[in-house]
C-alpha cells in the first residue's frame, strides 16, 4: 500500500501549509486540496535524541527540520549517519513509529 504525507493547498490563494489548519493562514479560506509533501529540500536543523518514547528500541533517533523546495518546512526522521545543517536531502515515506501495535508512516529523509 502506498503511503503519503499530505500538506494542504488553499484552493483560493494557492498557499501550501503543513500541517493543515482550519483557516488558511494567508487568506482565511476553509477550502483546501491535498498535496503530497515530497521531493528535495535543505536540512535546517537536527538532533540525535537519546531519551526516546516507549515505542522505540533504538539507541537514538536522528530527527530534523527540512526546508522543502515546495515552499514548506517539515519535521521528520533522518536516515543520515553524519547530518549537517545545509545539506540537501530527499523525502520519502516509511514506517516511523508503532503506536498500539499499528505501524505509523511518515517522512524520512536521506542525503542526496
Amino acid at each position: 500500500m502506498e503511503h503519503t504525507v499530505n500538506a494542504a493547498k488553499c484552493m483560493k490563494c494557492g498557499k501550501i501549509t503543513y500541517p493543515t489548519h482550519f483557516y488558511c493562514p494567508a487568506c482565511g479560506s476553509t477550502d483546501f486540496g491535498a498535496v503530497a509533501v515530497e521531493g528535495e529540500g535543505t536540512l535546517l536543523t537536527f538532533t540525535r535524541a537519546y531519551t526516546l518514547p516507549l515505542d522505540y528500541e533504538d539507541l537514538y533517533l536522528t530527527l530534523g527540520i527540512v526546508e522543502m523546495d515546495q515552499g514548506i518546512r517539515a519535521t521528520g526522521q533522518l536516515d543520515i549517519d553524519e547530518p549537517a545543517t545545509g545539506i540537501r536531502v530527499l523525502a520519502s515515506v516509511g514506517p516511523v513509529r508503532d503506536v498500539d501495535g499499528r505501524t505509523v508512516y511518515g517522512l524520512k529523509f536521506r542525503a542526496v
Partner: protein
Amino acid sequence: MRDVAIIGASTTQFGRAQWSLLKLMAEAAHGAITNADLGGRKIDAVYVANMGSARNNRQAGIASALVDRMNLYPAAADTVENGPASGASAVKNGFLAVASGMCDLVLVAGGERMREVNNIEATEFVSFLSHRYAEYIYGITLPALAGMFARLWMNKYGVTSEHLAMVAIKNHSNAMLNPNAHIKMPITMEGILHSPDAEMNNPYIAEPLRFFDCCPVSDGAAAVLLAPAEMAGEFTKKPVIISGFGQATDTQAVHERPDPTVLTAVQIAARKAFDMAGLKPRDISLAELHDAFTILEIAQSEQVGFFPEGTGHIALEKGETQIAGKLPINTSGGLKAKGHPVGATGVSQIVELVFQLRGEAGKRQVKNPKHGFALNFGGFGNNVVATILTKGA
C-alpha cells in the same frame, strides 16, 4: 477592574514526593492559606493547575478532588490545563475572578506528581504536547525540540556549550540556597564539560543538549491566595500586587514558525505584561524564566526584552544574571535545579517572586526588589504566560 493582591504564598519541597498528588497540593494550599490571616473568611473559588493527574495519578477532576481533600466546600473549583504553563494560566484565571468582582478570596494551587510513573513514561507524557501528526509520530520529545532549537540558536549567535553550562552552574548554585529545591548539587565547568569523566557525567540527551542542560522530572506543589488589593491589608502586612499579565500563542509545530529561533509568543506575552503594568524591562528587579532547557533561559532573557538580540549569553558570561548581578535570573534555581513539576512550575515561579518581594528569600534574597517578572512557557513556546508582580505599599 479591581487591583488584585497576593496575600499568601507557599511551596512544598520539590523532588521525589512521599505523598500523593492531592496531599502535596493540599500542603501547599494550606501553607498559602495560613500565610494570610483570614479571620474565618471562606474561600470563594479554587483554581488548580495540573497537566497529568488523570494519566499519571489516576485522578481526574483534580480541582474538585482538592476541594474535597481540604474541605473547602462549596467553593467553585476549576482545573486549568495549559501544559507546562498551567501554573501561570491558573493564576491568571484567579486574577480575573478577583479583578472582575465575582470573587474575593481565590486559592490557586499547582501540582504535579510525575515520579509516580517512570522517567520514560514521564518524557512520553510531556511529548503529547507536540503536534500529533507533524511531530509526535516521529518520536519527537520536548528535549528533541529544544535540541533542534539550540543548534539553530548556537549557530546564529555564537553561543557555545560552555554558555549553556554557565546557566546550569548558576542555577544549581542558586538552588543550593533554596531549601525547597529538587537538586542540591554544585556543579563545575570542569566536571560537566572538560574532565575525562564529563562524557559519562553529562551525556547527550538531544544533541547539542546534554544531561545538565535539561530540567529534572520532579514532584511538587505551590499555591498562592488572592484577594482584592483594597482588602489585602485586612489579611496581610506584606501584600504583593499582580501588576501585569500577558499571554500569547504560536504554532504548535515548531517547524511552521517563520523563523524558528523567534519565540513570538514570548515576545507578545512579555510586551502585553509590561504594557499592562506600565513598566519597561529595565524596571524589573529579578526574573524567573522557564529554563526547562538551559538554552531557553538565554533565548527568553533576550526575547522578553532584558538584553538586546544575540547578547543574552554575554550578560550571563559577565555575571549580570547572578543573584548579586544587575538582573538576577532564576534565584530559586529555576526549572533546571528547583525542579519542574509541570503543573506547579508557573505557580512556584510566582511564589519565588513573592518571597523575594517580601524580603523573605533567605540566603538568596535580592537587595530591595520592587518588580518581579515570571515567564511560564507552555509546549515548546506555543502558549506563553508572562506575569509581573509589584511590592505592595
